[in-house]
């Protein structure tokens, strides 16, 4: 089954002409129909095979990619999983999808997500939830839940997601995939349905660390259409693969949080492998992650209320009565925290605490090359779980929010699998701004020296 290939394997085989576009897309199509009930794709690209045939001599050789439905794709419906954009056909291409298409990546389809990327379950999608391919009684996480599920179910070779605070790493962790959240400003936001503009970061979700490094190389870099992208030249992350991590200093944070009692021992054991490989691993004290929930909640709602003000049903889309419950809550709370009399109390206060988080990470990175934590406080939650709490996403993303509001890059790699449920935990490895190569070095070494990556070590599913 060629759909189970990693990106690296697929590229090697396609470029050597050992497999054909017809064969790989035949298997992808079969996987699409077999897994229909997972509700992964909202819109399929009817021309995927012909697009791929014409791309076979380019660097990405026509490989099938899943794209989160908040990236504008010219001529292909883009909804951000909200019925407000039910019939929206973008008239231009996002920078990220433009870049991957130019080098021969092909869009299989647009993946389900939490509506407007508001959430960590995909249950707020107005087109129904996505199921976790590892165990369909459970959620895939979110907001890039469709992209992570597409990878885990081999309904694509690799995927593109976006993260504002956890939306790449948390669903990757829950689905047993690898998710790379670049430094804020490393990858262009142009043409991405805006959520929180000061933290939105597009990035790859793949089957291996190497796959995410390859995709990162193709999407990173300055974009004249997004003035928040950095003029710095992006690193070649494939150079960080197969490197020694001897002598690297690794700070372990958040594992002593009371909410992690059950899973912390499992992870501590896995971290020993880093010491065996010569890294200096020790527990480090970071600022209380619970405070980041408050900061993120205020900043994110405020930016949402501003970004979603454009949806008036006049130039495109349906009117504001089409917003789902979660989007309504976020728009209204954001409007409130920015309104006269409350902006100082909430918005300014949150931005000041954000500074404290920045200073805290600065302090930690003077001592450590990378910081590691869990990507989520536990395993995937059961279907329906998000409906009981209006703060579901914030609690699930608690361990990722501090790094998101401070713009840090991070990568989640599978670090444990529960045999009974077939559900995974993800290890979140964070690096200083603009230094993605450090976290990829550690993530790649961890992946290759543990048993948890199911593409490297098939579990006979």
């Amino acid at each position, binding site marked *: 089954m060629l759909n189970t290939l990693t990106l690296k394997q697929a590229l090697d085989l396609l470029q050597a002409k050992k497999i054909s576009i017809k064969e790989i897309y035949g298997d992808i199509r079969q996987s699409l129909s077999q897994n229909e009930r997972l509700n992964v794709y909202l819109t399929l690209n009817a021309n995927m095979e012909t697009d791929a045939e014409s791309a076979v001599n380019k660097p990405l050789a026509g490989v099938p990619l899943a794209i989160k439905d908040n990236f504008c794709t010219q001529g292909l419906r883009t909804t951000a999983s909200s019925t407000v954009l039910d*019939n*929206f*056909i973008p*008239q*231009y291409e996002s920078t990220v999808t433009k870049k991957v298409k130019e080098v021969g990546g092909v869009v299989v389809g647009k993946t389900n997500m939490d509506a407007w990327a508001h959430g960590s379950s995909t249950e707020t999608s107005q087109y129904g939830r996505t199921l976790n391919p590892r165990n369909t009684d459970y959620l895939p996480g979110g907001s890039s839940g469709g992209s992570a599920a597409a990878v885990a179910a081999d309904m694509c070779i690799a995927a593109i997601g976006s993260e504002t605070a956890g939306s790449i790493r948390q669903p990757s962790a829950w689905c047993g995939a690898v998710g790379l959240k670049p430094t*804020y*400003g490393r990858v262009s936001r142009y043409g991405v349905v805006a959520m929180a503009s*000061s933290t939105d970061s597009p990035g790859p979700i793949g089957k291996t660390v190497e796959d995410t490094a390859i995709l990162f190389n193709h999407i990173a870099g300055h974009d*004249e*259409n997004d*003035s*928040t992208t*950095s003029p710095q030249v992006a690193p070649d992350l494939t150079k960080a693969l197969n490197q020694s991590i001897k002598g690297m200093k690794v700070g372990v944070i958040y594992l002593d949080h009371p909410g992690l009692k059950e899973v912390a021992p499992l992870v501590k054991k896995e971290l020993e492998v880093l010491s065996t490989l010569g890294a200096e691993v020790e527990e480090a004290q970071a600022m209380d992650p*619970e*405070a980041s*929930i*408050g*900061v993120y*909640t*205020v900043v994110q709602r405020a930016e949402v*209320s501003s970004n979603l*003000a454009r949806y008036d*049903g*006049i*130039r*495109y*889309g*349906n009117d*504001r*009565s089409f*917003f789902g419950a979660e989007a*309504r*809550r976020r*728009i*209204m*709370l954001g*409007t*409130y925290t920015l*309104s006269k*009399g*409350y902006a100082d109390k*909430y918005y*300014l*206060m*949150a*931005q*000041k*605490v*954000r*500074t*404290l988080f*920045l200073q805290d990470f600065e302090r930690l990175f003077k001592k450590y090359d990378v910081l590691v934590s869990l990507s989520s406080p536990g395993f995937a939650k059961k279907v329906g779980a998000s409906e009981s709490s*209006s*703060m579901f996403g*914030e609690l699930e993303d608690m361990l990722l929010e501090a790094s998101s*509001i*401070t*713009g840090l890059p991070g990568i989640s790699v599978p670090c444990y699998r529960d045999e009974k449920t077939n559900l995974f935990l993800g290890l979140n490895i964070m690096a200083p*701004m603009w230094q993605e190569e450090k976290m990829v070095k550690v993530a790649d070494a961890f992946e290759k020296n543990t048993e948890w990556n199911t593409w490297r070590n098939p579990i006979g599913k």
Partner: protein
Amino acid sequence: MVNTAVSTATNQSTKSFPVEHVAKLSNIPITKEEAKKLEVAFVDTLKVVAKLQQIDVTNVSPTFQVTGLENVWREDEVNEKKMFTQKQALANGKKIYEGFFVVPQVINQD
């Protein structure tokens, strides 16, 4: 009406939230029943946010962006490659009249 809403809001972190006022500011149509549910959700969320007030931020400046980039300029000139044709600009409009978007009336409504 605004005054009432704001005075109700003073106690928001413990009891209530000016849902209808904020709905109006946000241009989100809500029903009475929805307003009740939303109020519970907002009060819950603000309880979590209120924990921030225990943190000492004396002499701390706010952070609005993290890239460190400042004053990113471009030449103020028309780039025709980036422009939509009229057909493209109107392609997703629901109500179009002779090449224009039709907008709802917002003045003299009352």
